[in-house]
């Protein structure tokens, strides 16, 4: 299996799908001539030409809405947000148009569109450029939300997202674009949307983490292993629909759960996971569900503050020990 960077895996998926289906095009800021702000779309203009790889002005509401109209009218757009922070000026397009036209029209229309870009914190970028949007978009029925942690999942899920007839919010990560991993390249390799991955099996505690938080979970699992405890690590991969079944089966085995989520805590994905567990596995819980999230503040700038803001392995490790009563 070839090893590639996360950005290359996403590109590989887009390229393969665009080769397969002429109705797919890519639009966004700097995606064409500049080859992508994070070089995800590098070389795609040369391969597909300016009809299908389109530079947009800084006009998120405009090009997001344009993509939706194009999707309603038979195309399959991939809309890149340079970062998901910028999607907020386009949010009406995503939540009122992409997510709801199918429903409001009684199923007469569909919106096969992928909105993609890097999500979450990426260092000392301060408050407006460090937002985690998954809970915001996952709130809306009609959308699907994917958040990936590694090149192989990125490849297989991007292909599924592009082929899906529902609008998909696809969350990547600036700091992980260079992450390398083996990718099982196959034009028909589709990782199903809505299926979590059990990255590591264990009996003592279930750790749930997506995107960057997945790697925090793996580090914590290593530390627990050194202490003689086995943690089960689940990467949800899809936020909506969330694979609660896999998490709940795991919690039924381990009787305890720690969720790592770099979103702000209030009404976040971790809130919903915790709710579902207590609802569906109440009698299996031996400890309260704990979560480790970003602090309940806007992301700060200073180096020490942003480090303090992020959910860290130390906190997650302590949370695990707490729920294991050790």
């Amino acid at each position, binding site marked *: 299996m070839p090893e590639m960077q996360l950005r290359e895996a996403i590109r590989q998926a887009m390229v393969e799908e665009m080769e397969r289906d002429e109705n797919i095009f890519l639009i966004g800021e700097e995606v064409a001539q500049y080859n992508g702000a994070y070089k995800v779309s590098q070389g795609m203009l040369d391969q597909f030409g300016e009809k299908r790889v389109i530079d947009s002005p800084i006009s998120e509401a405009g090009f997001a809405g344009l993509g939706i109209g194009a999707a309603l009218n038979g195309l399959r757009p991939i809309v890149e947000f340079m970062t998901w922070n910028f999607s907020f000026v386009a949010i009406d397009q995503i939540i009122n148009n992409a997510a709801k036209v199918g429903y409001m029209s009684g199923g007469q229309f569909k919106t096969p569109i992928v909105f993609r870009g890097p999500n979450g914190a990426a260092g000392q970028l301060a408050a407006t450029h460090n937002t985690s949007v998954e809970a915001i978009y996952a709130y809306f029925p009609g959308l699907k939300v994917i958040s990936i942690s590694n090149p192989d999942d990125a490849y297989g899920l991007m292909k599924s997202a592009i082929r899906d007839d529902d609008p998909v919010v696809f969350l990547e990560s600036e700091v992980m674009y260079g992450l390398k991993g083996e990718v099982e390249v196959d034009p028909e390799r589709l990782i199903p949307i809505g299926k979590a991955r059990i990255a590591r099996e264990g009996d003592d505690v279930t750790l749930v983490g997506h995107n960057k938080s997945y790697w925090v979970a793996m580090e914590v699992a290593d530390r627990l292993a050194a202490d003689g405890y086995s943690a089960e690590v689940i990467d949800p991969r899809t936020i909506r629909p969330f694979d609660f079944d896999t998490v709940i089966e795991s919690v039924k085995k381990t009787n305890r759960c720690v969720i790592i989520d770099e979103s702000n805590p209030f009404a976040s994905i971790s809130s919903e996971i915790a709710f579902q567990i207590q609802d569906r596995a*109440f009698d*299996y*819980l*031996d400890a309260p569900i704990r979560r480790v999230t970003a602090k309940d503040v806007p992301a700060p700038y200073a180096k020490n503050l942003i480090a303090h803001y992020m959910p860290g392995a130390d906190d997650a490790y302590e949370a695990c020990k707490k729920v294991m009563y050790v």
Partner: protein
Amino acid sequence: MAIAVEMPKMSDTMTEGVLVAWLADEGDTVAPGDIIAQVETDKATMDLEAYDDGVLLKKVIGEGEAVPIGGLIAVLGKAGEDPSAILAKYQGGDGAAAAPEASEAEVSTDATPSAAPAASGDGAATASASGGRIKASPLARRLAQEHGIALGSIAGSGPEGRIVKRDVEAAMSTSAAAPATAPAPVTTPAVAAPAYQPPPPIAVTGSEPAYNAVRISQMRKTIARRLAQSKYTAPHFYLTIDVDMDRMVEVRKQLNAVAEAQGTQKISFNDLITKACAAALKQHPEVNASYLEQEGEIRQYHAVHIAVAVAVDEGLVTPVIRDVDQKGLTQIAEETRALAAKARDRKLQPQEMEGSTFTTSNLGMFGIEEFTAIINPPNACILAIGGIRDVPVVKDGAIVPGKRMKVTLSSDHRVVDGAVGATFMATLRSYFEEPMTLLL
């Protein structure tokens, strides 16, 4: 104004009481101090006194019923007065006996003041029990229900005394094997209905059930809870010595000759052992100790209060002989006899069973050579005493008859390490083998 009679807290570990017998009838006039009923607590059967003048208007619970602390037992008032207001006040989810918050608080203030070590060492259990609400994880609740284990009989090891999975599992495993400190077989006849749904019968011959359903008494619940907690939370290790008892036998013979002459209480081997333990404990305060996790400290007690396991019909109790190191053998003998008699009659008062710093358990009279005992929390150690055996020993190059006894110390490794225990045992051996030093 009618007055509620609530279930009082009669011991530090009591969470509920069973009304064993009514000694007054509805319509009887009672005065403060009158005994109106008997209540079985986890430790003893206690008299329930009236604290007010009045007529017993209503018995709220029947004989054999259990009521949590603060729960309503009866209503006193003027003749012909209507008790319904009080009954309504106590009406709750758990029926007429449910305890409202306020009255509960009053009861706990009136609770028997208990000796420091006993109360603090049992912090987790007390926390579970306080307020009548048992804190348990959802999983622990389900497991307990599935296995027919009353949560009230389990001590929680989680935060604030929360009962968690491992506590229930420990209770499940100890319920399979009887604790060694319970010397007498359970002969209590079956009373009332089982407290829980028994598992489906394994085999049925004719119309006879394949088992006798024995109601779990308050005492049994306490034994189960405390010993399970002990075995689970205190990492036990065991040190056995085989001591030469020749001199002890000699000394006892002489002492009892004197006692007979003077008409005083005869001295048993157990009394001598108790005295020997006290002397050794005085020299080894690290063994005369408690591990108190919640307080974040290990307490090494100045006083030596030794609990002596006494078998009774329903199980066992551990009356405490206080300040053993300061008492003579005769006094120890007298007190031990008195306490044992009270124990068998279930007349022990809670304070007579609290505050021990060390425990002994003697199964020698049953022909047991040696055994290991489960530590009586919050003690750090317990001494299991086997019988005195006639054995051939080699003395001065010749095989001669000798007397030997095996004693085994169970130690809580959180407090007592192997070498500490061994040193203590060496001291103990010296007192057993040179018993005259005890008399100094």
